[in-house]
Each structure stands twice: as C-alpha cells, then as structure tokens.
C-alpha cells in the first residue's frame, strides 16, 4: 500500500499535522479517517455500513455522501501505532487548488439521550456560536486568495467565535476574486460557484427536498462541506468551478424513527437563504 500522508486541503476537524492524530490520504484517491474516541469511530463506521446498503436512499442523494470502502487498520498519523480507520473516497481528489468550507448544520448539536455533560457542552457551544441564531455555524475553511496567490486559513478559535456578520462576510469571501484582506468582497465567482444548474445552491436544494421527507436518519452535528476548483475558474472554457456539496462527519447519526430531521432541515433552509441572498445581490 502507498505511503500515507496528511491531506493538503483539509479545512476542519482534527488534523494530522505536527504529529497529531488526524486523517491521511494515499495520493490515489483514498481518504483514511482515524476512528474518533469514545465509540464515535464505531458509530461512524456503523452509519456508513447502514447507508451504503440502504435501498431507500435514491441514487442522486447518495452522490452527496462520500463513498465508503470499509475500515482498515493502518499506522496512525501521530505515531501511536496501528489504529482502525474509516476508508473513504477522497472527495477533493482530482482538484488541484480547491477552496473549501465546512459548515455544521442544525441549531442544536446535542440530541435526546446524550449525557448531561455532553448536553451542557453542546448547548454552550450552540449558544456561543451562530448555531442557535442562524441554524448553522462555520467549522473551518480554506479560501484561495487570487491576489496573494495563497490560501487564507483562519484559526479554529477565531472561526468558533464568529458572529452573524462574520458568517455572512466569509460566505461572500468564499466566492470572491479580490484580496481577502479587503473588507468588501467582490463576489466575482458567486454565479459560477453558488449559481447555475449544477452549482452549490442547486445541490443544496436537491438535498433539502430529500430532507423534507426522509425519516431514515437524524444527522446530528453533521457538516455540509462545499468546495470548488480555483485552477479553472478564471480560464475561459477551463471546465468551470466544478463546485460540489458533500455531507460529512457521521459520528452522531441516529435512527430517524419515522420523524424528519427537522433540526438539520431548519438549519439547511437557513443556510440556503444566505446563499440565495448572496446570489441575488
């Protein structure tokens, strides 16, 4: 098996840099996510097992989820020895310079049945961030600055402290061509990335329609991960932005029990409105 290294374009979650425990890629299209502690890794694998064999999920929806290739025990990134990892198709494989953004969806990240300690921690996070007010919060992003020719990354602590205005601003910066240090983003790529029949908005609306009736799963603490190619975006006939939406992070997925995932759906609808507003302005 090829040597594993840390992914270049990861925007959120635990990172393998600097000897910490984080995901790895094989450079051939596979993404290895170490099992998270306290049974979360098992939960995530269990979800992927269930989802891959669930005949009730329509194909066009399946495309919004990373393709699962089971689990594998490999050498962990922090040198702690061999650990089980979830093996997925690397969603950004084939993208040379992607801007990416991870948005945690839902006005609450806790769910019925959790421990009081976990509930209190989640509630605190939800209230301190934009989760309660907007129905979503930013978890991380990596945006290519076309003027500086390098990526703009913001420290997790800062992103976690974002308020409503910051969230709006970063969604605009995500699709801008001017310097990201400028306080007024030009949103030059808004229609190419957010708009169009295959853009982010169209994909989000397709997902939303599924969420209005699916009662299979409740996706607590899941993120929408959206990304697009910068390399071709400025070139005429260069293949366009190839913007994609993926759902990621399934450590806290529950059975739907016949009820729609109203928490995710409300947050997703709010997120959609923000994207729509940027497109229209």
């Amino acid at each position, binding site marked *: 098996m090829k040597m594993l290294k840390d992914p270049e374009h990861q925007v959120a979650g635990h990172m393998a840099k600097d000897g910490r425990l984080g995901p790895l890629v094989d450079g051939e299209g596979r993404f290895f996510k170490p099992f998270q502690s306290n049974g979360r890794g098992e939960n995530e694998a269990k979800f992927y097992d269930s989802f891959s064999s669930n005949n009730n999920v329509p194909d066009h929806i399946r495309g919004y989820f990373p393709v699962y290739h089971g689990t594998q025990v490999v050498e962990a990134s922090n040198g702690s020895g061999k650990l089980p990892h979830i093996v997925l198709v690397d969603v950004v494989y084939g993208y040379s310079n992607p801007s990416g953004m991870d948005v945690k969806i839902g*006005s*609450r990240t806790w769910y*019925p049945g959790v421990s009081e300690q976990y509930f209190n921690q989640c509630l605190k996070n939800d*209230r301190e961030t934009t989760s*309660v*007010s*907007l*129905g979503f919060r930013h978890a991380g992003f990596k945006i290519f600055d076309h003027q500086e020719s390098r990526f703009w990354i913001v420290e997790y602590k800062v992103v976690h402290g974002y308020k*409503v205005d910051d969230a709006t601003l970063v969604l605009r910066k995500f699709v801008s061509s001017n310097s990201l240090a400028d306080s007024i983003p030009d949103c030059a790529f808004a229609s190419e990335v957010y708009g169009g029949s295959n853009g982010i908005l169209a994909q989000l609306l397709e997902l939303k329609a599924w969420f*209005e*009736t699916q*009662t299979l799963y409740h996706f607590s603490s899941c993120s929408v991960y959206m990304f697009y190619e910068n390399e071709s975006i400025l070139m005429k006939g260069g293949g366009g932005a190839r913007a994609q939406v993926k759902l990621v992070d399934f450590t806290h997925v529950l059975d739907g*029990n*016949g*009820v*729609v995932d*109203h*928490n995710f*759906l*409300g*947050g997703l*609808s*709010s997120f959609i*409105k923000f994207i729509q507003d940027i497109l229209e302005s």
Partner: protein
Amino acid sequence: MHLKAPEHQVAGHIAKDGKPGPLVDDKGRFFKPLQGDSRGEIEVKFYESFSSNTEVPDHIRRYFPVYHGTQAVEGSDGAAMIVLENLLSKYSKPSVMDVKMGSRTWYPEASEEYIQKCLRKDARSTTVSSGFRISGFEVYDHKELSFWKPDRKLLNGIKVDGVRLALRKFVSSNTLSDTSSKPDSAFASSVYGGSRGVLTQLLELKTWFENQTFYHFNSCSILIIYENESIHDDGARAQVKLVDFAHVHDGNGVIDHNFLGGLCSFINFVRDILQSSDESTDN
C-alpha cells in the same frame, strides 16, 4: 357589549383565581388580556407591526387573526385587552387543535430562567424529538353528540406514537372516549386533504417561512379548526391559523429556521395520516 368566556379554548390562559381570562362578544370579536411582564407589550407590538407590514402577501395574512387594536374592557379592572377576530365565530360545532411549533420554545433574547424552564418542558414533550407538541385539542364525537378533550396531564406526557394517535382521533367520528376502539379517521381527507385542506394550507405557510426574515415566531402555535355541523354535506371548512405572539422577535435577516423545521415535521405527520387513511378507504 355582552361579553362571556369563550367556549372552545383548548390551550393557553383561562380565567383563574381572579386573574382575567379571554372573552368574546356577539360581534365576532375575541378579547385577550395583556399578559404580564412585557409579553403583552410584545404581542401588541407584533400585531401593530404585522398589520401595517406591506411586505406580507395577502394570501399569508389570512393565516393570522385580524387585529382590532387594544381596548380597556369593563369588568376586567379597566385593564387593556388585545382585540382580535374571534376565529371560531363562524363555526357552530368546531373541533380545535393547538400545536406549538418549533424544536425549542426558548430563544436567545429570553432570560436565563425562562430558557431553563423551556428546556425542561421541551425535553419532556415531543418538542425536541418531533419539532412540535400538541398543547391541547377538543373534538366533536358524532356518536355521543358532544365534545371530548383529552386529559391535560396525559397529553403532556405523550410521545411520538401518542402524537400520531391524537392526530387521527382529531379527524375521527367514532366514540373517542372509548380508548379500546381504533379511531376511524373518517374525516381525514375532508380536514387534512383536498385543495383547501390543512395540508395545502400548511404547505403554503411553509413556502413563506422559507423566505420571510421579518419575524421569529418563538413559542407560537398553529390552531387547526374545522366544522362538524353538516360535515358530510357542506365539508369541513378546515382552517389553519397562527396564534400567540407573546414571544415574537425581529428576524434580523435570518429565516425562522426553528419554526420552519418544526412545521416541516408536522407536515410530514399530517401527510402520513392522510396517505394511510387514503389507502384504507381504497381497500
């Protein structure tokens, strides 16, 4: 002006211990006492804002009670009351259900004490799990020729299956006080279905909620009303109304995702009952 207590209150405050309750007159008006500690003010502020908000489309305005200002009423210690359209005045035998919408009834602007109180209530009820809870309902029994309402305590403790049962009972004609017989859902398609039924109205509201950023309807209820008198000949005349605006706040450019999520969940419950009752009548 002849005022009396309304007949079909299913939820909310009633006259108790010398505190005034709502009243109705014989001209189709409903008088609601202003609730204490700023809630009354907030409700008035909402109605004032809403009635003059030209950006609310007409087809959405009809889901809200008509507002007639405030008035000091004799016999209520001169205390001001909110004057609204009496939603039941055009019904002779109405079945009514009050559904509190949203997976949380608290909101960021509330006091810490209120938030904790709401968190407890939301967790104990179906609010957290389903995005809404049934606050109360009253349904006409066509066999017993009388109204029936479930015990308030029992209703507070119901889970998801209890919600489905209540929504079926609400549109049934058979003896409801007899818990051993299954609800027949005889009126499911006339009340929930059809081009002007509850489901259609809820879907219309949903579209507005996907875009409106004027108001956040915290702790608001959807009231469902339908007519039992001559239901077989004249139809159910089902209506959906939004009520209880004591905790409404500015939307500040954000949609009311809490209400919307709950509304979508409620729509799914109603649709399921409609589909299963359609299937059983086909058999």
